[in-house]
């Protein structure tokens, strides 16, 4: 029940997106929820699949901004709740930028997004020593079209459970 509720409240792209997009067409819309992918929320509670599918592993940012938007606050609150419940996971917060900025500036911008995300999680009770951050700047886009619909998805911070892979 809880899982289903989370799924509905949290229509945000999941980690599987990256895998699917490798083979996908560049302009294809990235699926935004587990439902769109036809996935049931049948992951084992506390597993990384549970986290990515039922909680949502990523948040999105406005252009050239590292402010945590309202929709992102909802996601991060759920992430914090989950991380506080399953205290065995250490995490890496990856900060990313879209490609509409220059390389070095975007490395810094991605870092700022990762730090803002980390700080939010800490404020929601996740222990600071469980979190490391890394910026990939604009080097790791998940959506590859040369249009705003893709840039929106690339301006993101992804919470990765360590050992689970990115």
């Amino acid at each position: 029940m809880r899982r289903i509720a989370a799924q509905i409240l949290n229509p945000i792209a999941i980690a599987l997106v990256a895998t699917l997009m490798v083979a996908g067409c560049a302009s294809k819309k990235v699926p935004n929820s587990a439902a769109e992918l036809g996935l049931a929320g049948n992951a084992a509670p506390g597993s990384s699949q549970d986290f990515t599918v039922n909680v949502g592993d990523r948040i999105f940012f406005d252009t050239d901004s590292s402010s945590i938007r309202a929709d992102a606050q909802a996601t991060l609150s759920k992430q914090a709740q989950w991380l506080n419940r399953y205290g065995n996971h250490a995490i890496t917060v990856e900060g990313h930028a879209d490609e509409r900025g220059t390389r070095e500036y975007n490395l810094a911008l991605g870092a700022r997004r990762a730090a803002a995300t980390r700080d939010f999680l800490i404020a929601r009770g996740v222990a600071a020593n469980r979190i490391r951050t890394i910026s990939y700047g604009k080097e790791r886009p998940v959506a590859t079209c040369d249009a705003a619909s893709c840039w929106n998805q690339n301006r993101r911070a992804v919470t990765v459970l360590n050992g689970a892979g990115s």
Partner: protein
Amino acid sequence: MKHVLKTILLAVAFATGLAGATIPARALVEIDVNKGNVAPLPIAITDFLSGDAMGKQISDIVSADLKRSGLFAPIDHSAFIEKISNPDAAPRFEDWKVINAQALVTGRVSQEADGRVKAEFRLWDVFAGQQLVGQQYFANKGNFRRVAHIIADAIYERLTGEKGYFDTRIVYIDESGPKNNRVKRLAIMDQDGANQRYLSNGKALALTPRFSPNRQEITYMSYESGKPRVYLLQIETGQRELVGNFPGMTFAPRFSPDGQKVIMSLLRDDGNSNIFTLDLRSRNTTRLTTADAIDTSPSYSPDGTQITFTSDRGGGTGHSQIYVMGADGSNQHRISFGNGSYSTPVWSPRGDLIAFTKQTGGEFQIGVMRPDGSGERILSSAFQEEGPTWAPNGRVLMFFSQAAGAGGPKLHTIDLTGRNEQEVPTPSFASDPAWSPLLE
């Protein structure tokens, strides 16, 4: 080890005052590179005499270099009347006037007893009927391309009054694979795209390589340890070294003009980034900026007294702007005030201009402005382009550029006048070019 390139080249240059007058009389043939729309100078570059293919190979490289500069128009060989059989004798100037060659290049390549190659060339002013330059070089056979570039530099310098830039190399990032799984490798090549080779295996993301002033090392940013950090790489030995021991990400590195320091950004724990230097001898670090902002992309003035950098400390829209400060961090002030955001400032080797990337109206542009922010000029615009680097003579910029839907960037050059934009040949997509200095 420090002088590997020098010892393999042995570029001994002599003025060979053999044939006729070598009085440095005022030549009639000259190019004013500062004129906006100069017509390229017609020049006849004959095949250098040699017993094998090397003579033609060298003259072809000289010809290609001069043509790419946009300042010279090499004349098709089929128009030539005189066939040069003795490069030590004066040519029949009338034969070259007829085909409107303003300048003529003749030469010879021969094998020395010790196995080295000797290359000689002469540059003639056709209408004045005199020799302008005569020089000879010795090199190992494997270095014939460098000899050709050095000859092209000598011709360029004599006819334009500016230093050449052909005997230079480019470090850059080779990009392969799909956009969402890009492999980025350090690569190096001659400025004309020849002798391309890789300096990293592509397993780890590598970015923003830049040459040391002595051309022997590069500093770059890499994820090879799992953490994004600045490294040094000895080009010939492949030896790598972490720069400093910082807790957070280090990025955007460049050498100081004396090669003693690396200047770079260091990420703070709060998510902001400031500019630091690391002295490569003493290992001392010096913090130059403290703003609660993104301060990045630092670049020294050629005399080492000032630094230009990108910062978003001003806030507002078009956050990132260009700033200048003293080398000690003093007098930090904004210089870019146009409509848009500015980043990647790079100081010209002549000191007179700062090249930058500008984003405005949904486009990226490459431009230049004076160090006080005046005289902004946009040289190039595209869907996406950034990262200018200067040729060592400060006349030409290289950057990377891509059209919408192109799938990846390629390297481009453009003259400071905004003319003669050309793609640089690379085996795959390419970004983050850095132009080497000339060897002194």
